[in-house]
């Protein structure tokens, strides 16, 4: 912990130095009125869309938002230490972690993402179909060959090779792993008991690749392998991905629409607690391995100008901002979840007074 604090001190010093330099440049460069600057830190998964949003919002309002994509863990630490104006995390904070925070923290889901099963079976002509039992069985080492009857049962009429299955997982701690293991814990009792859900877990079998590129590289190189990666990454690299059977029994292709449908299906639960995982959604068109990514914001803001800037930014991001989500391969929030966010926005206060009274 102390090392973390030390790192924070160093970072703060670095930021201060950068600030001084900018300050020195300021008068020469800046012509407009004094602008509010917000800083945030955290998740890497939503970084592409966040940086796009921050850029668009800067052009629109002049508010500058600096974001360091240092990972969800680091983002949570910095929120706790109060060194940033907001944090970002792919996993919602548990009750225990929320209690550790000095003040009340609110969660704002911004976009949804899906985790897809990429595989390497060149002989297969149509997309592979997987059920939750098969995925859990493969990653627990109980299903070891592709022509296992449990895999065959999900793929009637398909000639599956008698090749061994090589399961690939992420070696680095990641929100992707968190979504995948949350799904497996939701659908498999033995998995929940033996392994559980986290940003990294103790894998019973398989080999680990670093990052989406490491996992997909291994899958591409190795016949008979299967690995989980982000939907956006699989789309951009045109990898074959499996259709997965959802709770209502249909095999669903992972797409932006079926990801949004998963969040839609979970929205009654999200209205009660926005931190509820959206995996294994009961909606008929939902892809089952999905998750939301969150902004973490203190309910009571200390600085009125910053608090107002942050609230208006979130308001913009969950409405207008959603229109650019698809172009960067993120799934937009369904209307029901936007409503949940609007409710949460009304809870934001500065010195005890509501920030956005007009909404």
């Amino acid at each position, binding site marked *: *912990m102390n*090392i973390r604090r030390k790192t924070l001190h160093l970072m703060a010093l670095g930021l201060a130095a950068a600030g001084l330099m900018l300050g020195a440049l300021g008068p020469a460069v800046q012509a407009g009125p004094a602008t509010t600057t917000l800083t945030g830190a955290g998740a890497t998964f939503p970084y592409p869309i966040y940086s796009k949003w921050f850029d668009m919002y800067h052009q629109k309002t002049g508010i500058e938002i600096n974001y360091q994509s240092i990972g969800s863990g680091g983002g*949570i630490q910095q929120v706790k230490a109060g060194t940033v104006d907001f944090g970002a995390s792919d996993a919602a904070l548990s009750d225990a972690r929320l209690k550790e925070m000095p003040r009340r923290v609110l969660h704002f889901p911004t976009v949804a993402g899906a985790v897809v099963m990429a595989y390497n079976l060149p002989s297969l002509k149509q997309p592979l179909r997987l059920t939750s039992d098969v995925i859990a069985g493969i990653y627990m080492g109980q299903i070891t060959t592709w022509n296992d009857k449990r895999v065959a049962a999900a793929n009637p009429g398909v000639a599956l090779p008698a090749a061994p299955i090589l399961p690939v997982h992420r070696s680095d701690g990641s929100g992707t792993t968190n979504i995948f293991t949350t799904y497996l814990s939701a659908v498999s009792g033995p998995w929940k008991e033996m392994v559980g859900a986290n940003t*990294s877990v103790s894998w019973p079998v398989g080999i680990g690749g670093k990052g989406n590129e490491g996992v997909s590289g291994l899958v591409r190189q190795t016949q008979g392998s299967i690995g989980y990666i982000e939907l956006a990454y699989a789309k951009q690299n045109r990898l074959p991905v499996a259709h997965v059977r959802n709770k209502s029994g249909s095999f669903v292709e992972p797409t932006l629409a079926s990801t949004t449908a998963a969040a839609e299906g979970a929205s009654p639960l999200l209205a009660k607690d926005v931190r509820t995982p959206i995996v294994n959604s009961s909606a008929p068109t939902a892809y089952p391995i999905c998750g939301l990514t969150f902004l973490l914001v203190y309910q009571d803001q200390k600085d009125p100008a910053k608090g107002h800037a942050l609230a208006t930014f979130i308001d913009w991001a969950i409405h207008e901002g959603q229109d650019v989500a698809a172009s960067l391969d993120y799934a937009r929030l369904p209307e029901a979840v936007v409503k949940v966010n609007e409710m949460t926005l009304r809870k934001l206060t500065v010195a005890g007074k509501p920030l956005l009274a007009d909404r």
Partner: protein
Amino acid sequence: MKAARITADGLYRAALGGAAALVFVVVALIVFEAARGSGLSIRTFGLGFLTSTAWDPVSEKFGALPYIYGTVVSSALALLLAVPLGIGSAVYLAEIAPRRVGAIVSFVIELLAAIPSIVYGVWGFFVLAPWLRTAIEPWLIAHVGFVPLFRGYPFGIGMLNAAIVLSIMVVPTIVSISREVLLSTPRSLREAALALGATPAEAIGVALDAARPGILGAVILALGRALGETMAVTMVIGNTNRISASLLDPAATMASIIANEFTEATTPLYISSLIEIALVLFAITIVVNGAARVLVYWATGGRRSAAALA
């Protein structure tokens, strides 16, 4: 006049002393902070941390043994491959090759040392791994698979891949230092050996013997790089916390687990355990370096006593 001279001299000494002290202070701070950061983990797991093979962030059970094993074995294997190759090329470049060829080739080898480790990692992952998977490893399994070292499944990545990539990364260090050391040994040694009727190979042996402490120093530097190498190893070792006798199986090192999990570690005990891994890595580096130093001392002492006998 006199006072001014003393002040300048004193300043000079103080500046040099300060520079030396600063290095020491930095090392002391690293140890202090790592020890402080790992306090929670040390209190929770005690010495069991070093012998446990569990690494389960969900139930917060942490042990370092698979990573210690992975670091030590991958570095040892890398040296096993790199030392004969490195010393062999150094001898050729210093003793046998024409002087201009030697200079050009050693320049190229030294360029290798400047390549960022991520590039070696990418090469290991995209070039070496498919080759190992389709050609080398199936052959090893078929022909020497009766030895547990070469049993298993041809993953392409794993301990063998990591050791090969590491060995390529440390060869330049061994070659360039060994060559310099060999070139700086007195020419008269070889001439004397030849005059006494030694074959050219035996004369080189005499030169090698004289260069031994320097060559050992080169090997120690190479070992240091192999122990601490993070990025390239993380990409090619397969990252599983299992101890396996087979070189074809995936493994993990202390540096790779820190690189993999530090950014997303959220609970205090988890972070503390990762910092303790760093502390253990530091301790192992000191032990290995110390052992290597003893080896150098022993080797140079041996040479002196041999000289005294002669």
